């Protein structure tokens, strides 16, 4: 029989997080600090709107780019929160999660051989999506001493004549890093000067704990070269609804709509109706969840530092990214041994890029009680390491 597979698909490395997931699932009694989704359920009024749309028999396709009402609400939200006006008619597309938006944006923008600058550690899908879109990933290794922000110098060093697109994943998963306005201004001048585009993945924009989130699209000259990606998963605790969106210049969005229409048709209708309610009446829910994450963030950072781990202050998302370099173990070994000996699951930094070596991603999307219990075990583990090695 002939080889049924495409070389391009086969060549893609399976996600490192998948490997770790397989190990953890062997241990059902483990306490996990390994998730990348909120611990809250979707607020009831949003769920009810979804249920109501089903009762009303709204079980049909929507237009390819999404429900008109939803696109209007998205534009009004982006404008009121981040001060960037978009036209709902042709500058926004509703997608199946932020993930689909990342994929189709790259497919709409990249020609074979064009380079995509991807700062790492970062979310696992940018690199494979770039490859699948025939782009060439160029990895920038973010540094702890810069609090994992992308600096102007790093960006300049990565730019070549083939550079087309910069991925800007802030607030960041897995580091919890943010880019403040001054940081964005620094890189914006480079971006404009070298005439490249930006895919700004702002899915954690509502979970920013040091003043409000600033989008790069709001800076002068940036709106026309930015695809802004956001969604409902993190801000409204709606991961399972699979709903996100992208805003950007009509020229790019219309190509994304074309790909989306052939691949997906439209985002789930029930989810779209629920999302309209989220944007109209969900601000208070977001504020409550943000405050709750922020409290747990302080708690986790405090506890980790008390144990003697160094970690920079993460002002975004719901992750802390402590360094374990002083133990002389790889992230993989540390995480695996911690899991085996103390039954606590955290994700090795290397799941998010090679430069995540020496770090762990710890999620605080857990109740305070779970965090306490897990951290007591982590402390126990570390004390043993300090005294001269784990008992493996």
């Amino acid at each position, binding site marked *: 029989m002939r080889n049924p597979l495409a070389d391009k698909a086969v060549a893609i490395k399976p*996600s490192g997080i998948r490997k770790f997931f397989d190990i*953890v699932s062997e241990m059902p009694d483990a306490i996990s600090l390994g*998730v990348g989704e909120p611990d809250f359920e979707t607020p009831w009024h949003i769920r009810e709107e979804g249920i109501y749309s089903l009762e009303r028999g709204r079980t049909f396709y929507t237009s390819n780019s999404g429900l008109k009402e939803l696109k209007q609400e998205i534009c009004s939200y982006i404008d009121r929160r981040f001060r960037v006006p978009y036209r709902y008619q042709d500058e926004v597309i509703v997608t199946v999660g932020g993930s689909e938006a990342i994929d189709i944006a790259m497919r709409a923008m990249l020609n074979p051989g064009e380079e995509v600058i991807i700062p790492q550690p970062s979310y*696992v899908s940018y690199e494979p999506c770039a490859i699948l879109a025939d782009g060439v990933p160029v990895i920038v290794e973010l540094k702890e001493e810069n609090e994992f922000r992308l600096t102007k110098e790093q960006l300049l060093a990565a730019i070549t004549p083939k550079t087309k697109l910069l991925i800007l994943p802030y607030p960041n998963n897995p580091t919890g890093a943010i880019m403040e306005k001054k940081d964005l201004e620094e890189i914006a001048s480079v971006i404009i000067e070298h005439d490249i585009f930006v895919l700004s993945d702002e899915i954690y924009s509502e979970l920013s704990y040091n003043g409000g989130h600033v989008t790069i699209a709001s800076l002068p000259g940036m709106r026309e070269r930015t695809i802004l990606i956001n969604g409902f998963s993190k801000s409204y605790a709606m991961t399972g609804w699979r709903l996100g969106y992208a805003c950007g210049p009509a020229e790019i969005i219309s190509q994304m709509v074309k790909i989306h229409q052939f691949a997906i048709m439209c985002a789930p209708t029930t989810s779209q109706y629920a999302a309209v309610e989220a944007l109209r009446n969900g601000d208070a829910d977001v504020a409550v969840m943000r405050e709750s994450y922020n409290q747990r963030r302080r708690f986790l950072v405090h506890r980790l530092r008390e144990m003697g781990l160094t970690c920079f202050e993460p002002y975004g998302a719901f992750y802390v990214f402590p360094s374990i370099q002083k133990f002389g173990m790889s992230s993989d070994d540390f995480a695996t041994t911690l899991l085996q000996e103390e039954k606590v*699951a955290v994700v090795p930094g290397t799941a998010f890029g090679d430069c995540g070596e020496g770090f762990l991603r710890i999620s605080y999307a857990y109740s305070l009680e*779970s965090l306490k219990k897990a951290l007591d075990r982590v402390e126990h583990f570390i004390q043993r390491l300090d005294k001269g090695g784990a008992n493996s």
Partner: protein
Amino acid sequence: MREKILAVIEKNSRIDLHDLAVLLGESEAAVANEIADMEKENIICGYHTLINWDNTSDEKVVALIEVRVTPQRGMGFDKIAERIYQYSEVQAVYLMSGAYDFMVMLEEKTMRAVAQFVSDKLSPMDSVLSTATHFVLKKYKDHGTVLSQKIQDERMLVTP
């Protein structure tokens, strides 16, 4: 800071001072002072435990009683309320807008005891015009907490 302290301890009054200070990013002393002040000012009036009595072998009957009264000259509603809330079996008394004046929540061992309270104590009061007693059959949610279900984490253990 007050609002933030209250929001946390309203849901978890047993949280220790150290943890509370860390959560709020404040010093322990500042949080302790603020709590002490709020206790003095009667903003914090007590620390209670939310118990689902249905899950114990203790028999309890809870009744909500609507009470209509005639406020008397120079007394207003407050005096009448006081005469009602002084009874220790009365758990709560609210002055209401609408079809009746007071909502009285009563907790007793038996239905007979509730009936006796209404007929012997409440109804004979001078100002009371009428009462309507409703028994609670089941509590689903109390103080913002769902009593019946146990929360389970349905998420996968590791996700990107």
